[in-house]
């Protein structure tokens, strides 16, 4: 590798990263000359065409940004509108919101961890081979994912782009029998997700740790999913409305998506690893016990172990959904009444991939004057690039094929939802 030798490798299908993007890596005489992670992102278009629409339309419109995490967009937009219009959603309606969000975590995390990320650790080329190697594991994962979808169907009306959620709550409260009827499968889900954590615990994790700035929501009473203040492991503690004062985005020439950063320009990390490190104490005892069984303590700084953290969050999400399902009573009203008017509101929830921030300004008639949405993958981009740099530096001696593999695996640590509606990632390694 020390010879001055030029090789270019092009891989045009990183099929297991949702969306479209590219990684260009240029190595000269064993030193990284350039590393660029490019993604193409549609939410910016949404911000423009939200202008002039009614406040009540934002949840359903923004839900279309993502087919995997529509709840994150629906709820972030709803809460921002509620903030602007002085509405509080509490009691059973708040519980239902938390429960449907658990469903989204379950389906998103399980698909990523079992079908897309696990094959990397097993040395398999794709999700098909894992079905051949371990059909029972795949059956379990598919049943868990279906459980997540079923929660979305029961509360949200349908699994993809749910239709039953609105600013102030729900169009129709789900029937008691339907919600309570999920309890049996959720009990199975708690056990099954635990078994998956233990199975993945045996993987060989690349030795890479980084001193991340972890940013997540934090709620005083619960492991934050759909509500909370924004905190970091370096002492930041701000209300959601302070987001734009502390975080910024920059245009980088090589990507049409914005790169998120702290106001001082530093990269930060959002997502399962950030939540786990910031809110570990609030996980259930079973989740913590299972984490311990696979060697995880209160702090985890190896991004490759995010596959374990995702599945630990699935245990927690199944337990939370079960707790809510078992005590669910139909509310007197399916929503809180909302009166349209002028205002500015902020909303932020923990999408499966990390915090997703919304801000809207409304005119007197409740129409949107201005919208701002900061999705999780945009926030992680700068950190993804930094991680790739660190990982390539440590693995310089690997052959191009193996290095490419390692980079793909590293990108998948973030489950990057590069843009839900797009396709593939081009990976180019050039060595001079």
């Amino acid at each position, binding site marked *: 590798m020390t010879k001055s030798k030029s090789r270019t490798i092009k891989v045009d299908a990183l*099929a297991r990263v949702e969306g479209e993007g590219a990684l260009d890596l240029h190595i000269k005489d064993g030193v990284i000359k350039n590393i660029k992670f490019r993604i193409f992102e549609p939410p910016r278009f949404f911000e423009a065409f939200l202008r002039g629409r009614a406040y009540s339309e934002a949840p359903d419109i923004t839900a279309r940004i993502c*087919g995997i995490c529509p709840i994150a967009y629906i709820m972030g937009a709803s809460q921002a509108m509620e903030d602007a219009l002085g509405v509080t959603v509490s009691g059973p309606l708040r519980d239902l919101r938390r429960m449907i969000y658990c469903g989204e975590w379950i389906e998103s995390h399980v698909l990523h961890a079992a079908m897309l990320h696990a094959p990397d650790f097993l040395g398999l080329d794709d999700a*098909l081979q894992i*079905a051949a190697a371990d059909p029972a594991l*795949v059956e379990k994962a598919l049943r868990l*994912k279906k459980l997540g979808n079923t929660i979305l169907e029961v509360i949200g009306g349908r699994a993809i782009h749910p239709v039953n959620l609105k600013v102030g709550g729900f169009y129709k409260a789900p029937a008691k029998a339907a919600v309570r009827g999920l309890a049996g499968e959720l009990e199975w889900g708690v056990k099954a997700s635990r078994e998956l954590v233990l199975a993945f615990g045996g993987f060989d994790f690349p030795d890479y740790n980084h001193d991340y700035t972890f940013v997540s929501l934090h709620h005083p009473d619960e492991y934050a999913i759909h509500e909370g203040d924004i905190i970091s492991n370096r002492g930041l503690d701000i209300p959601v409305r302070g987001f734009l004062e502390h975080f910024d985005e920059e245009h980088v020439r090589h990507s049409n998506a914005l790169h998120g950063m702290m106001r001082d320009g530093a990269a930060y990390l959002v997502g399962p690893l950030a939540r786990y490190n910031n809110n570990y104490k609030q996980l259930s005892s079973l989740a913590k016990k299972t984490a311990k069984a696979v060697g995880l303590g209160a702090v985890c700084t190896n991004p490759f172990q995010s596959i374990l953290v995702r599945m630990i969050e699935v245990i927690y999400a199944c337990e939370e959904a079960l707790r809510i399902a078992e005590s669910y009573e139909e509310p007197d009203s399916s929503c809180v009444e909302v009166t349209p008017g002028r205002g500015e509101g902020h909303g932020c929830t923990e999408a499966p991939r990390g915090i997703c921030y919304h801000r809207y300004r409304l005119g007197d008639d409740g129409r949107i004057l201005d919208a701002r949405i900061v999705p999780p993958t945009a926030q992680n981009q700068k950190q993804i690039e930094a991680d790739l740099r660190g990982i390539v530096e440590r693995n310089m001696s690997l052959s191009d094929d193996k290095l490419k593999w390692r980079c793909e695996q590293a990108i998948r640590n973030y489950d990057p939802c590069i843009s839900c*509606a797009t*396709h593939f990632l081009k990976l180019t390694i050039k060595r001079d």
Partner: protein
Amino acid sequence: MTDKIIGIGNAWRGDDGAGAAVAERLREMGIDAEAQDGDGAELMESWKGCDGAIIIDAAVSGAPPGVVHRFDAAESEIPKRFFRYSSHLFGVAEAVETARLLGRLPKRLIVYGIEGANFNLGSPMSPEVEKAVTETAALIKGELDHA
């Protein structure tokens, strides 16, 4: 005659929307067909309990745009590379082959692939692909009529 018909695609991505457009066309002809966005796991759930299924998706094999491929997936493997343009990570080919491995394949499974050329965000469908959508809907109708 209980074949489930599912068209996969994203109408916002030019030719990617071909499969979903076929489903729409079939519905206009009074034939029950569903549009999905390409989540393979959902696809495997949707044909559960059906004797047969017909799936339509956009394909990229290097053929000219608008070419219609037809695979009997119950008989043999479908070429994975053809369908990498499925909108979601665990796509049609993965779903079909995973289902085969898990013994979850319907008895009859036909997969139509419509060759696309332009998958850009916000692009309209290519005229050749538009034509192929109509053609495929007619082919499927014929297939159902003769079943």
